[in-house]
Every structure is written in structure tokens, then in C-alpha cells.
């Protein structure tokens, strides 16, 4: 799915449909993102099935955190969507804005550098994702089976918005590889 052409004959992967159903069911109508291959499936499901969810493209993940925080202040339930490498670009904003001000968001993070990775440059940041989340006190779930996606997103959103703190859903390669290539 590296080119638009490969989207022809596209069928929504179960995991992507589940995630979108979970987001919609949680009352999330705003997604701020920096793209990644697997996330294209989510964007496509949103576009086709959930036109009431707005997806806003940011130039950098740190910027996306700022936009999401502003959306929350304005009354929305924001979702941040990025590749694991992009989490590294968000750190000061996650700490000094979201955690310090108790501003929640659901973080959807497509993983690189985990099992199945071929690119060694992706591995250090991939390994660091969970320790970084722990260091900010951000809980995470790993969506490792497509059928659990909706429930895990619903649960993460309940945790985030109920307690006013970010919560993360990790999308490992072995989940997303079923519906696309990274």
C-alpha cells in the first residue's frame, strides 16, 4: 500500500474497522495525525464510514499534540495517530502540556522496530516506546488481535477521558501486516 494505486480493490481490515468503531463509539470526532502506512487503513475507514470524524494532518507529531490539546480545551475528545518513531517527536509536549495540564487524548501508535522489523534504524525508538510511556505514567494496551480492537479502543478512551490523562493503543506490526505493508 505504498502507492494510491494499491488501494484499488481495498477491503477494510478487521482491526482498522474495529479501531474506528471504538473511536466513534467513544465520542471521538477529531483525529490529528502524521501518516504511516498502516494508519492509511484507519483514515480510509474514517473517510468512508465516519464522515462526522474530522482528520487533521499535522507536519510533525509534537505539533499534533498541540492541536489535540486545543481541540480538548474546545470541548472535543481528541485522538492522536502516529508511527512509533513519531512518539519521539512528542515528548516535551506530552509532558509539559498533556500530562501537566491533565489534558487527555487517545494515542494510536503504529509500531516499527518490533517483531518483524527489517530496518535497524527503527529499532531503538521502537524499543523505547513502552519505557517512554511508562515514564510519563501513560498506560497502554497492545491491540494484538483484530477482534479485540474495538473493545480495547473503547476501554482506552474511557480511561483517558474519564481520568483526564492520555492513554495509548499500540498497533504491532503483526496486527497491521495482515492488511497492508510497512
Amino acid at each position, binding site marked *: 500500500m505504498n502507492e494510491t494505486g494499491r488501494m484499488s480493490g481495498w477491503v477494510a481490515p478487521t482491526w482498522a474497522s474495529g479501531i474506528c468503531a471504538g473511536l466513534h463509539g467513544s465520542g471521538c470526532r*477529531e483525529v*490529528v495525525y502524521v501518516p504511516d502506512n498502516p494508519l492509511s487503513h484507519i483514515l480510509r475507514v474514517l473517510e468512508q464510514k465516519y464522515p462526522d470524524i*474530522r482528520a*487533521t*494532518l*499535522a*507536519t*510533525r507529531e*509534537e*505539533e*499534533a*499534540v*498541540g*492541536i*489535540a*490539546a*486545543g*481541540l*480538548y*480545551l*474546545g*470541548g*472535543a475528545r*481528541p485522538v492522536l495517530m502516529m508511527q512509533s518513531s513519531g512518539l519521539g517527536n512528542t515528548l*516535551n*509536549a506530552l*509532558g*509539559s*502540556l498533556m500530562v*501537566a*495540564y*491533565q*489534558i487527555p487524548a487517545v494515542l494510536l501508535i503504529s509500531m516499527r522496530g518490533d517483531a518483524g522489523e527489517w530496518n535497524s534504524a527503527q529499532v531503538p525508538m521502537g524499543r523505547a516506546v513502552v519505557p517512554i510511556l511508562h515514564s510519563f505514567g501513560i498506560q497502554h494496551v497492545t491491540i494484538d488481535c483484530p477482534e479485540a480492537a474495538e473493545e480495547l479502543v473503547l476501554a482506552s478512551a474511557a480511561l483517558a*477521558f*474519564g*481520568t*483526564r490523562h492520555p492513554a495509548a493503543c499500540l498497533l504491532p506490526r503483526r496486527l497491521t501486516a495482515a492488511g497492508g505493508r510497512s
Partner: protein
Amino acid sequence: MKRIEATRVITASLSDEPVVVSLGHPAYDLFAAGDRPLNFYTWGSMGLTTSLALGLALARPDRRIFALDGDGSLLMNLGSLATIGACAPPNLGIIVMDNGQYGTTGGQGTATAGKADLERAARALGIENASTVHDPATLEETLHRARRLPGPWIVIVKVGESVPTMKPPQDCVHIKHRFMAALGTREAGTSGTPLLQ
């Protein structure tokens, strides 16, 4: 024109617009010139003032939103101007206090002290309604005109550094609650709910 003078011109021109302000001296001056619940003071996340304001503008199309940024901060997140150019929220206005230095950290020079030009950068990134002002009267007139035009717009205010005299409240969660209450957005968990019988 000193930054505090320019800040007073801005606060005098405000009605009910929420203002997101950059950490450090811009926030200190905004507090001194006119504290109000609709001021959102940042204490970290340098560079994200315009992004926060964009998120607010998207969530609240019924309100006109102002970002009050500094040159050093905006230079950290120029991509934000490209995103704002692309989203083109008509209810967003950006004011940049450009003193050509990192005032809060000791006055080290920024790129705008040299060749960098934020007005031209904003235009190049898709914000056509961009101007630079150097004196209080032009700033007042520009803000007066800008508020009647659809946004997004950006005004670069060339200022000299002034010594701040006050600090805003330091409790981040208090700042958020106060701001959201003034804006009329309610958070989950902040009011009671009936128990199901």
C-alpha cells in the same frame, strides 16, 4: 515599542476572544496587562501556541481565537503555519511578539535578528493575510481591521524586550479549569451524575 506596550494595546482591543499565550515573557506580560479567565497560559510546550490555538479554532468555530506567540517559539514550529494555511480556519488570528531574541532565557539572538522574516514565511506557508507592525498606533489599527476580516491572519509585532513585572498563576490544572469554564466547555467528571436505580 516595548513588548509590554504592545501587549497593552492587544488587551485593550480584546472582547471575548480566548487567547493562547506562549510561555515565559509573553505570558508574564499578558498577565500583567490584563489577566482574565479566557487567557490560556502555557508553562512549557514551547512552540505549540499556534497549534493549541488552531485546535481551539477548529473545535469552536463560533468563537474568534487568538494566539499570542514569540519569535523564538514560532521558529520552533514553523510547520504549524503550513497546517494553519491548509486548514484555513476563518476564526484564528495570530499575533507574534518579535523581539529578535530568546528573552526569557537571557536575550540570546533568534534568527529574526538576522535574515529570517516571519511575515514572508507565513505567506509562503499559506497565510496570505500577513503583516508586520512597528508602532502602537499601527498595531491598534491592524487589530481593529483584522478582527472584521475572515482569518487566518498573522501580525508580526516588532518589539523591544521589556522587563516583566508579574507571573501568571503557576497551577496548570487551575489555568485549564478556569479557561474551560470561561469558554463554556465542560470536562467529563467535573459535575455530579444521577445514580441508576
